[in-house]
């Protein structure tokens, strides 16, 4: 079975043998996943699942977790600052972030800032490479990142508290409790991650010879989660997911003389979901209210700011029917109303409806096919017909072939349409065709996944200067992206010594069709890897990241690049076996003191340290 194999593979990747064993035990108990379609309709694509044990080993914010564990490329405006991605050579707004099945990319700028999300708020973070607009809508072009909270219905009272203290006064407080029985399940979590973030810039001095350091880089991110499920009976389940977060960040200076600014943003998400399982017929209804806002203070010392807010109401009905034993069909309709108001783009409301049909057909246990089609209806733009077509064939024990073809899109944002001045109400969505072939090889202790993809993107939105210097978005460019992703994992144990290793490599060409130039801020090469070892109560790991150089200009001027860098982390922890688990851990981050940056003039820290306690009771 591909799915089992895939999830087994994902577990391998997590390089956490002991926990992985625990996971496989708990997974026998009933766990309700928040995003059923992620599992159901991704047989023909590659999904990398990072569970809580991996999340706990990495730095708190999602940028670090995914930078060291996935093929996604990140650029950060300094440690903890604005962080955006390129996935398969696409732009920041062509990776969709999905919270419990709901697309949460900003309605204002189309993207997600990965330094405003703390991984510990979720049970798992999954990375799905490739198109997914049929299920997840706008932005699911390069891939999707899934933040999932799972509710389990068995008797338990579990608490998890992780406390971190690190260099630059970096403090992490992450707490999660699960209280459940056969009827009720509740998960309540709190996370706070902050830092004064005043690290030194390695070998950089001002013109007066003073050591340069990261000024005005402090951040504080607080998130509260409360998720509750109630099982009426074996057929009916009601779930409520809520989350509130506030990120209060100053913005790192690139020159000492700049005015100090800050950026505060927050969100509130509420999702009410009903699952009905009536044998052949299944229903899933969702209603969500999502609020996001930001305030930008160009000068910290003054109470003057620009702002933007959006409120979205999302309703979704998903009706599933098992046609034959081998064939399942889902019809989905949704309605989405977003009201946005801000100092930059006025006051506008956007309504989007859509209808989608998904079909899954399993000819046999080894051969699975999936098909999806979706069309959106809105007054705002002309929407293309989206589709997805995939097949997974398990040739033998060793080899699994996957094929997927899809059409995906990214809709214009409030900024694109309504920005004053320059917003262009006559924009088309960016759209793409994508084809991929995945080869999954599984040996005894080893798994190798290799995916080749080709993507054609047209109508890429670019802000271009017009007359009088007013910039305006236009559907200008066509981009061809292609490349290969290789994921490798291995594990082995010799009596009590457990070893595991994993690595990934992404080779990416993403070129402007007209000029033949590589898109800027898309590296040709990205590699990461980890090895871990554990024995009894002690475990240790080493992880590294190699990021190839990137051009910083569309003309590929060879002088205008961000140089390649390699960053390594080393960690060790010891379980005192007090309570259920009491781990004391120590990490050395940027072990070799690499002097690096992911954006020009925005250096990242040298060697630094973190100590943590991870308690389960």
């Amino acid at each position, binding site marked *: 079975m591909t799915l089992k194999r895939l999830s087994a593979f994902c577990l391998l990747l997590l390089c956490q043998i002991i926990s992985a064993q625990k996971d496989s035990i708990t997974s026998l108990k009933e766990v309700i996943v928040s995003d059923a379609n992620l599992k159901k309709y991704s047989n023909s694509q590659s999904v990398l699942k990072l569970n809580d044990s991996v999340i706990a080993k990495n730095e708190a914010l999602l940028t670090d977790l995914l930078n060291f564990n996935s093929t996604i490329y990140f650029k950060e405006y300094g440690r903890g600052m604005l962080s955006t991605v390129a996935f398969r050579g696409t732009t920041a707004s062509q990776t969709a972030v999905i919270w419990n099945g709901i697309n949460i990319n900003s309605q204002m700028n189309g993207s997600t800032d990965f330094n405003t999300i703390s991984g510990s708020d979720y049970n798992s973070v999954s990375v799905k490479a490739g198109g997914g607009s049929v299920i997840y809508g706008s932005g699911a072009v390069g891939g999707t990142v899934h933040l999932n909270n799972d509710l389990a219905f068995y008797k338990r009272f579990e608490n998890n508290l992780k406390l971190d203290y690190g260099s630059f006064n970096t403090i992490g407080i992450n707490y999660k409790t699960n209280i459940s029985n056969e009827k009720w399940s509740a998960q309540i979590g709190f996370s706070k991650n902050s830092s004064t973030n005043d690290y030194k810039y390695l070998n950089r001095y001002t*013109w007066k010879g003073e050591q340069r350091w990261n000024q005005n880089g402090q951040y504080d991110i607080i998130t509260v989660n409360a998720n509750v499920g109630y099982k009426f009976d074996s057929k009916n389940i009601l779930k409520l997911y809520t989350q509130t977060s506030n990120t209060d960040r100053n913005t790192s200076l*690139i020159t000492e003389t700049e005015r100090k600014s800050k950026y505060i943003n927050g969100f509130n998400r509420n999702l009410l979901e009903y699952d009905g399982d009536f044998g052949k017929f299944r229903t899933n209804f969702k209603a969500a209210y999502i609020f996001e806002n930001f305030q*930008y203070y160009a*000068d910290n010392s003054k109470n*003057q700011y620009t702002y933007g807010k959006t409120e979205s109401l999302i309703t979704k009905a998903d009706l599933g029917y098992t046609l034959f034993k081998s064939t399942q069909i889902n019809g989905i309709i949704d309605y989405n109303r977003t009201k946005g108001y801000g100092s930059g783009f006025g006051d506008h409301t956007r309504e989007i409806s859509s209808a989608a049909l998904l079909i899954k057909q399993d000819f046999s246990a080894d051969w699975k096919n999936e098909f999806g089609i979706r069309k959106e209806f809105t007054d705002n733009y002309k929407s293309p017909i989206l589709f997805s077509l995939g097949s997974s064939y398990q040739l033998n024990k060793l080899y699994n072939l996957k094929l997927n073809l899809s059409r995906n899109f990214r809709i214009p944002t409030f900024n694109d349409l309504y920005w004053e001045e320059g917003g262009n109400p006559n924009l088309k969505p960016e759209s793409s065709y994508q084809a991929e072939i995945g080869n999954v090889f599984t040996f005894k202790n080893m798994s190798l996944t290799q995916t080749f993809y080709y993507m054609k993107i047209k109508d890429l939105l670019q802000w271009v*200067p017009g007359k009088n210097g007013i910039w305006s978005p236009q559907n200008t460019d066509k981009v061809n992206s292609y490349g290969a992703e290789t994921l490798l994992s291995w594990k082995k144990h010799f009596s009590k010594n457990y070893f595991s290793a994993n690595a990934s490599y992404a080779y990416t060409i993403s070129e402007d069709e007209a000029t033949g130039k590589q898109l800027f801020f898309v590296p040709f090469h990205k590699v990461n890897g980890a090895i871990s070892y554990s024995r009894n109560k002690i475990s240790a790991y080493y992880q590294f990241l190699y990021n190839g150089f990137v051009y910083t200009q*569309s003309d590929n001027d060879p*002088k205008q690049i961000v140089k390649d860098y390699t960053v390594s982390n080393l960690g060790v922890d010891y379980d005192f076996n007090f309570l259920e688990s009491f781990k004391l851990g120590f990490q050395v981050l940027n072990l070799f003191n690499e002097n690096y940056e992911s954006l020009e003039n925005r250096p990242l820290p040298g060697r630094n340290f973190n100590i943590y306690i991870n308690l389960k009771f």
Partner: protein
Amino acid sequence: MKLTRFLLIALSVSLFVSCSNDDSNDAPKGVYDNGFFILNEGSSKGGSVSFSSDDFSTVVPNVYEAANGADFAGVYLQNIFFNGDNAYIIAGGSDVINVVNRYTFKLVSKIETGLITPRYGVVKDGKAYVTNANTYSYINPATGDTDDFIAVIDLATNKVESKIDLNSTANRIILENNKLYITDSSNDKVLVVNPATKTLEAPITIGYSGDSMEVKDGVLYVLKSPYQNRGELVKIKLSDKTISKIAFPESLDGSGNLDIYGDKIYYTVNKSVYAMNTSATTPSTTPLFTASLSTDGYIYGFTVKNDKFYIGDGGDFKSSSKAYIYDLNGTFIKDLAVGIAPNGFYFNE
């Protein structure tokens, strides 16, 4: 244009202001003598300065980095003015002015406090007068349009010694006959400041969108180019402040870069250069020539000097661009590889 004006002032000032400079006291004037700098505004990642010799045979990219290593000049480089042996590079996005030796580009000092979104500067009697846009009304509706000021910089100490509040918006500045004249497209006046008393004098109302300007024979010429509306050339006789206006037709929408050279007034629209006589009463609507710029580019930086046009191609404002040299007949002479968004030419002579 103000550039020639800057130079005259700078040269005359240099006659009686002595500037101490540790780096080049006894050295020859330096590698960047006999040429000109192209100021590349850059993007949010920073700007740069390119150099070309007068005969265009030597072009050096990023002379600031070449001379000063890792030191960062700042973002959105707006303007350069000279005084004696020094060049002052205004970084509008970094609230700093980098003081360098104009012949070696070695950093002499930085003016680091007292500036808030500095724009353009002129020099008179050892002092620089730099307009500061301060806050903008989109973020500060209460006072964003009235808080602009002139920072008065003592060039002996490279410190802001005082400021002159303008109670208005401010951008371009020129010095003429001991008076400062200031335009900004978002107000309807030419501001007049007496630098000796640091006081505002009666402004001259010309209507909104006044931008590039130059004085010739006691007449201040201001080119207005409102967004999506017709432009106008305003002539102000400075002796009695009487105004006459020449209307621009729709075909000249988006005009800019007024520069007077000889008895001709030059201005640009998109990729084209136009010329009219200073005595003309109607504008020229036929281009003198159209420059062969990049597809989406338009004339961003522009100067007429030494019987040549110096044109900076804005390009896409994201990639390294080019500067183009044409003769006064519009015949192409040379193009030079420069940085992002070349917005001005500054001559060492």
